[in-house]
């Protein structure tokens, strides 16, 4: 590695006032032709390129990004990572990702700060209890570390939660996945970019796709703001903008793009050392290494690409936060922002071939795609390289919306996750 990162390289560079660090990745201009083009330079897209190069020995790859890498949902999400999903297919997919997270900093030689501080999901009514127990049992049998906690155990694990039985929706219990946690979102994009770049992947920023060129049932290339680029294989990982690319190729997808908002508080000294999510009271919170409370709000009910949501959603979220954590009432919101999430009817993603030869889609992650980044990239790379899905993403094909074999994760993840 040209720029191997370590404490020793930091010390060495300190002597030259850090004036000799090389580029983390190069800003490439498009070549005429690539073996594979990935549309979308977010975490998933960059990971796809990385694994295509690393595991499938495809070297002539471009990642084209409309803006700057990691600037979409990768850089806007609340970074929760967990794999305690209900259905076998989901559990397989997300746990594959979680296992990759566990070695990712070393794999990339880039500290993505994956912090396994645990994720707790709370139950507030009897059906919540049933659903969470159902999920915990399924997780356990699928080899995923998840335990059910009663109210006292919830309190013990996170003492600042208001577990009084007198609140409107008392905490009746919860689940805990200890291997779950958070990571540094930007680092994931930058780490994969650096790794991919080193294997020769071209990362082309400020390059907007304007058209997908087809020859009959096959793709031939893409029209971009930097000109036409030829390729036989296109992997689309454009999150909120997936339908926009699909429409260019003459496809319709089962997606709706909606605003999703998040916010952070001002930084304070450590006060909450885990991630707590609640579906019924609809709040989730963690604390970043910088000290900010990171709070995810829900989606609005209308389609929008404006990256703005309604204030009611933010108000509702903080309403829930104060119900569960009354001590945060005097904390202050520092920043709020919105992203665009593409949501499938069954709240599960699509990692799939399409009816057009050479066109692959990785989309529909809704509100929870960040956690899957390494797994999604790995499986999508496999699907593109072999023109066949890996067994872990076979269930996430587009055809499930025709046959009716949906992977309905609403029950387990009805709210933003």
């Amino acid at each position: 590695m040209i720029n191997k990162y370590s404490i020793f390289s930091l010390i060495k560079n300190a002597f030259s006032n850090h004036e000799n660090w090389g580029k983390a990745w190069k800003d490439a201009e498009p070549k005429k032709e690539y073996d594979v083009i990935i549309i979308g330079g977010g975490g998933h897209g960059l990971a796809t390129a990385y694994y295509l190069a690393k595991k499938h020995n495809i070297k002539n790859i471009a990642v084209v990004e409309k803006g700057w890498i990691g600037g979409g949902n990768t850089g806007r999400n609340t970074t929760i990572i967990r794999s305690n999903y209900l259905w076998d297919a989901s559990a397989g997919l997300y746990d594959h990702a979680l296992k990759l997270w566990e070695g990712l900093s070393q794999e990339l030689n880039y500290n993505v700060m994956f912090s396994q501080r645990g994720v707790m999901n709370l139950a507030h009514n009897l059906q919540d209890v049933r659903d969470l127990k159902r999920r915990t049992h399924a997780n356990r049998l699928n080899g995923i570390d998840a335990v059910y906690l009663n109210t006292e155990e919830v309190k013990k694990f996170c003492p600042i939660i208001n577990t009084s039985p007198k609140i409107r929706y008392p905490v009746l219990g919860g689940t805990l996945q200890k291997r779950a946690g958070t990571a540094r979102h930007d680092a994931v994009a930058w780490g994969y970019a650096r790794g991919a770049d080193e294997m020769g992947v071209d990362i082309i920023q400020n390059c907007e796709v304007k058209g997908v060129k087809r020859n009959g049932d096959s793709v031939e290339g893409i029209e971009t703001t930097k000109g036409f680029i030829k390729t036989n294989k296109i992997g689309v990982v454009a999150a909120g903008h997936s339908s926009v690319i699909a429409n260019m190729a003459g496809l319709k997808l089962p997606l709706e793009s909606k605003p999703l908002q998040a916010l952070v508080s001002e930084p304070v000294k450590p006060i909450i050392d885990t991630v707590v999510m609640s579906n019924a009271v609809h709040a989730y919170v963690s604390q970043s290494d910088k000290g900010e409370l990171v709070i995810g709000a829900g989606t609005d009910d209308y389609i929008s690409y404006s990256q703005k949501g309604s204030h009611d959603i933010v108000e509702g979220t903080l309403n829930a936060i104060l119900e569960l954590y009354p001590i945060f009432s005097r904390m202050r919101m520092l920043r709020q922002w919105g992203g665009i999430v593409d949501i499938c009817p069954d709240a599960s993603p699509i990692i799939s071939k399409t009816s057009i030869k050479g066109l692959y889609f990785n989309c529909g992650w809704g509100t929870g795609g960040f956690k899957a980044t390494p797994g999604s990239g790995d499986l999508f790379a496999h699907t593109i390289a072999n023109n066949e899905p890996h067994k872990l993403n076979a269930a996430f094909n587009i055809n499930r919306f025709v046959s009716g074999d949906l992977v309905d994760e609403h029950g387990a993840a009805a709210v933003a996750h």
Partner: protein
Amino acid sequence: MFIINCPFCGEREQSEFKAGGEAHIIRPKQPTELSDDQWAEYLFMRKNIKGIQFERWNHAHGCRKWFNLVRDTSNDEIKAVYKMGEKPPIK
């Protein structure tokens, strides 16, 4: 948050309304005649347009009537409002 001009009640705050997704997707008159693909097209496949979209809204906390509106989804600007069954006032 938008201000929506309900064709029946006039201008109201968005919090009185619920969104109903893309408009003019007509439920097939003879669903049994359709292939699985055609049915899936009706059920799930959406244009999900970035730009001018025709969409359904319901004045849920007012007159409870459904109506259509035209909105630019790239900046949320509402261009027109029209009643169910009416032709869109703009293309």
